[in-house]
């Protein structure tokens, strides 16, 4: 081969020092160093997790008798918390998939953390199925596997639909999360040293941002969004059918699908605010997760609160209008029966309190949003409590009524589920970029290259 002609290009210059982007520096910094406060927080969440784990082991040993089940209420706090966490899991996919299809660019700042919360919330929720069945070692009976008895599962049961819906949702949200992470892991790989370099090199799967890779990646994101959008709407509908397909008063309602989906999105956005407001403050991410993003999220809260509040009211209207005595009794007992406290928490925190978000001063007040989001989390837990426990407590025949109080074991496991979720999120903060860096840069570079360009 002939030597290349002598051009300016052949004069090899020393490589200039890496001119890194500000987004890389700011957002990768979150992963650096572990402060004492972080460790204390992690110790707290791990402590709750161990409390729940220990209680669970004890429950497996003793049996479900240590839960507060009392005739006729045999779905208790575990199912309540299962539905709660599945609901929390809805914000991530809504932000990543639906807002992606709507080309709402403001989602770029929050989609990563919301997707992470989705994955962790589904993992938390899925455990409650195992906790609830009691005989954990038989929970695989729910899967259609060939067995010596020649029996198959009952595909007409809503509980089985639920298994398929939750299983699919967990898988697809993990896939979505992982695929979104690949370009950002590559960014981290190029800047990491030591063991992190090795781990990120493997996880980045040789990502180099070539046109072939980006083209496939964009198309994959689009298709996954298209698949995840009907999925996210179906999952909580299927969860609601666990109730709506029965003939229990207060459960047997066609409104349950949209009612549960709106509630799920409502609670999910509240949880994203509860988690992201402190993270934004502690790691100084105000330039990336701006007040504008938080205000947009609060608008979503307001919208979904109105839908949920409307569902609450229409439930009352329909029970009155139906002239069915059992329905009417159920809803009377909700508001004025022994569980009145839960009902008024649900109505107040989910339906009435968020109406304050009509005021712009409150929408842009970060402290207010943070406190409101916590109240909404509590209210949404009570919503599931009201629906599940009261439905079972006051079924048709008053002679068969009975009250339920959660036992210490159930409360410990419910508290521990927050510890599990928190632990996973804290570990995530230190391992992966908490904001989708590549997508933030996409907006930045677009802006920069159209300001005073020579084109």
């Amino acid at each position, binding site marked *: 081969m002939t030597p290349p002609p002598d051009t300016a290009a052949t004069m090899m210059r020393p490589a200039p020092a890496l001119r*890194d*982007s500000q987004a890389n520096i700011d957002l990768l910094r979150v992963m650096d160093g572990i402060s004492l406060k972080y460790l204390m927080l992690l110790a707290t969440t791990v402590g709750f997790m161990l409390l729940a784990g220990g209680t669970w082991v004890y429950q497996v040993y003793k049996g479900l008798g240590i839960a507060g089940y009392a005739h006729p209420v045999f779905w208790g706090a575990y199912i309540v918390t299962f539905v709660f966490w599945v609901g929390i899991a809805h914000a991530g996919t809504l932000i990543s998939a639906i807002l992606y299809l709507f080309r709402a660019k403001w989602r770029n700042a929050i989609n990563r953390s919301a997707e992470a919360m989705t994955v962790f919330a589904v993992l938390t929720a899925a455990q409650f199925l195992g906790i609830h069945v009691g005989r954990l070692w038989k929970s695989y009976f729910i899967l259609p596997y060939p067995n010596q008895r020649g029996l198959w599962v009952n595909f*007409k049961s809503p509980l089985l639909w639920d298994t398929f819906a939750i299983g699919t949702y967990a898988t697809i949200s993990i896939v979505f999360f992982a695929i979104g992470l690949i370009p950002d892991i590559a960014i981290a790989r190029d800047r990491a040293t030591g063991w992190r370099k090795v781990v990120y090199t493997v996880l980045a799967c*040789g990502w180099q941002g070539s046109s072939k890779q980006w083209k496939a990646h964009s198309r994959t994101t689009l298709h996954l969004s298209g698949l995840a959008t009907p999925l996210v709407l179906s999952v909580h509908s299927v969860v609601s059918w666990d109730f709506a397909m029965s003939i229990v008063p207060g459960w047997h309602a066609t409104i349950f699908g949209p009612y549960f989906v709106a509630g799920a999105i409502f609670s999910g956005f509240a949880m994203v605010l509860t988690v992201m407001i402190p993270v934004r403050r502690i790691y100084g991410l105000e330039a990336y997760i701006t007040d504008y993003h938080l205000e947009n999220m609060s608008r979503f809260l307001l919208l979904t609160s109105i839908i949920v509040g409307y569902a609450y009211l229409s439930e009352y209207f329909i029970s009155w209008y139906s002239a069915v005595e059992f329905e009417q009794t159920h809803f009377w007992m909700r508001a004025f029966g022994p569980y009145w406290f839960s009902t008024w928490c649900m109505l107040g925190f989910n339906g009435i309190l968020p109406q304050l978000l009509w005021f712009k001063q409150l929408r842009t007040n970060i402290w207010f949003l943070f406190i409101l989001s916590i109240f909404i989390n509590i209210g949404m837990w009570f919503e599931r409590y009201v629906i599940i426990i009261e439905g079972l407590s006051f079924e048709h025949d008053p002679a068969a009524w009975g009250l339920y109080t959660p036992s210490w074991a159930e409360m410990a496991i419910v508290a521990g589920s927050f510890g599990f979720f928190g632990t996973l999120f804290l570990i995530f903060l230190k391992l992966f970029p908490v904001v989708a860096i590549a997508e933030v*840069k996409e907006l930045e570079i677009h802006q920069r290259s159209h300001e005073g360009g020579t084109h």
Partner: protein
Amino acid sequence: MPTLVSVFDRPQDIVSAVKRLRNRGFTDLETYSPAPFAEIDDAMIEKPSRVRAFTLVGGLAGVTTGYTITIWMANNWQIMLGGKPFSSIPPYTIIAFELTILFGGLMTALGLFIVGKLGRKRDPEYSPRFSAEEFGLVVRCQDRDVAEIEALVRDNHATEVELVGA
């Protein structure tokens, strides 16, 4: 074979460089960008991504599996439930729907790995600066074309041009 690595600051510059190079008949190109820019990918690859075929196949496999396993299993050992037919389409549609999404999603992810050629070693021309905020363009060409290509990319505001692998 000489390989020219040029660096750009703005996506529109690399797009016009790619278009002009392709017009001149240089097709052995590769770009590296720090963020997704559809205009660069479209300038490089005109055809829509083949990932779509994976999604379609996965989705069809899912819907078929969903209806097949439910109907077959319900009839393999018939148990009458609520007086409903053994092959009840409405409840099985839920299973078929979930499996459509499950298989479709997993196949889409597989499509990304196959079409995007993930899981391989990075190119030697790749540099960490392309995961910062600069764009890279790699041209493999004949020795006689080096000068022309260099002039062309510089004309399109390349900030640096480097010749590697002579």
